[in-house]
């Protein structure tokens, strides 16, 4: 009887430990510190003869995550002087199979991108983007600041791929928050329902290869798109 009791206690302890590990992992699930930006509805739009629901998103990229945006909200709740960041959100929600138009204002400085492939506009409606009023299919790879690169997660829409680059701000190496911004406007057709990830493909962080700091911490140069 005593042996059986100890056996049951051992199994219970094991189950509790496993449950604790599960709860621990679940608590580490990424939650956007600045909340989710839900795309604004903007009627319908026709692309290649097919009519889609049209929604819009807008964001900026700032050279420093510290400080506040013009509307008084912090660039990033985590701060970090000198870390570039997307703001005010890094998590978005858009409807499935709709045309998503993004208005992006880019304030950070630029450099040479290590892979010129990401200086091209890819996966957008018409394969183009409007950068500072000019419709282009790419930018100069030697003066790139960031990219907004979206991919479908495994099992969701593995072939989904949108990547749009942004050039340096008008202030170049003197870039500061909210000044000298360049505008990047583009549209893409959202995929099927599910979770998609996006990140910047320009190594704009600190450390070896520029992949530390902002590039290694969720929410600065990466995030998710919930397609619902």
């Amino acid at each position, binding site marked *: 009887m005593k042996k059986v009791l100890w056996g049951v206690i051992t199994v219970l302890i094991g189950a509790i430990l496993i449950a604790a590990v599960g709860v621990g992992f679940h608590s580490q699930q990424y939650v956007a510190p600045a909340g989710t930006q839900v795309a604004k509805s903007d009627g319908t739009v026709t692309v290649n003869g097919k009519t889609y629901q049209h929604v819009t998103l807008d964001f900026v990229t700032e050279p420093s995550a510290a400080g506040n945006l013009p509307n008084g909200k912090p660039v990033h709740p985590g701060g970090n002087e000198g870390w570039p960041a997307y703001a005010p959100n890094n998590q978005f929600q858009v409807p499935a199979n709709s045309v998503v138009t993004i208005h992006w204002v880019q304030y950070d400085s630029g450099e040479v991108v290590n*892979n010129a492939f990401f200086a091209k506009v890819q996966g957008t409606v018409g394969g183009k983007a409007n950068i500072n009023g000019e419709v282009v299919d790419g930018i100069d790879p030697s003066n790139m600041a960031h990219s907004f690169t979206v991919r479908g997660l495994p099992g969701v829409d593995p*072939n989904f791929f949108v990547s749009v680059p942004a050039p340096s701000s008008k202030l170049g190496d003197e870039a500061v928050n909210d000044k000298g911004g360049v505008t990047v406007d583009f549209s893409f057709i959202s995929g099927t329902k599910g979770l998609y990830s996006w990140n910047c493909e320009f190594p704009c962080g600190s450390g070896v290869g520029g992949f530390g700091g902002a590039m290694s911490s*969720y929410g600065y140069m*990466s995030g998710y798109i919930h397609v619902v």
Partner: protein
Amino acid sequence: MSSEEKRDEIAAVVEPVFRGGPLWKRPAGKVLIIWVPMTIIGLLLAFFAPGHLFPENMSAEQEDVKTTFILFTALAAPVAAVVWGIALYSIVGWRKKSGKSDTPPEDGPPIRGGTIATTIWLGTSVILVVVLLVWGMAELSSELAPQQNAMQVNVTGQQWQWTFSYPGTGVTSTQLIVPEGRQIHFHVTSEDVTHGFWPVQLGVQIDANPNVTTLISATPNKLGTFDVRCSQICGLNHAYMETTGTTVTQAQFNAWLVSHGASATSVHSYAMSAK
């Protein structure tokens, strides 16, 4: 203690293991009884588990990998069963029994010699290892042997995206499209940290290192899609560094290149260049 006394003492320990009394009552017999079913289980796993655990065969290399896995597991099964048999017998047969003293019995005398046992042990090990070595070298050699119609694809990993370019055509894509029935030479490199290029169903994998180009070959032999993953933990979005590859016919492959901006001339030149 004289050498004769030592031999007697050892014999007193060893003899009952192998001789005297019915087989199932002797330690060697008990280990054998455990060994037989465990070997059968191991062989069953070797022959039937890979069919369920392995990704679909989509290349000659993946078929070789699967065959190699089956062979190695089948040869290892009886050896592993000996180890497990002795371990299980020792754990169960020599556990502390209720009512017995907590003090463990004294160690038996050290056993040395045993020419027959040593010969069997060493001989079996050598034969197994040599068979595995020869088989492995032959398989590796066949995978690396270039074929006449081999086609070149440049593979670049960077946090956290794969890009594939087809030399001479000007086409670069985030999807890997390859023709069926031709050996593909993947020239793999990285723009930043170490990644691992792993087209899963093609059965090959190699590291993508910065400033170095490594080569791996595969011959897709089945039309359809396959997964391309990063097999080296490479940073924040490593888990998402995955894309799909597609094996198509040569005609479809040429058409795909043209649809991605390659000229008909460059496609023809690219498709024929290695022949």
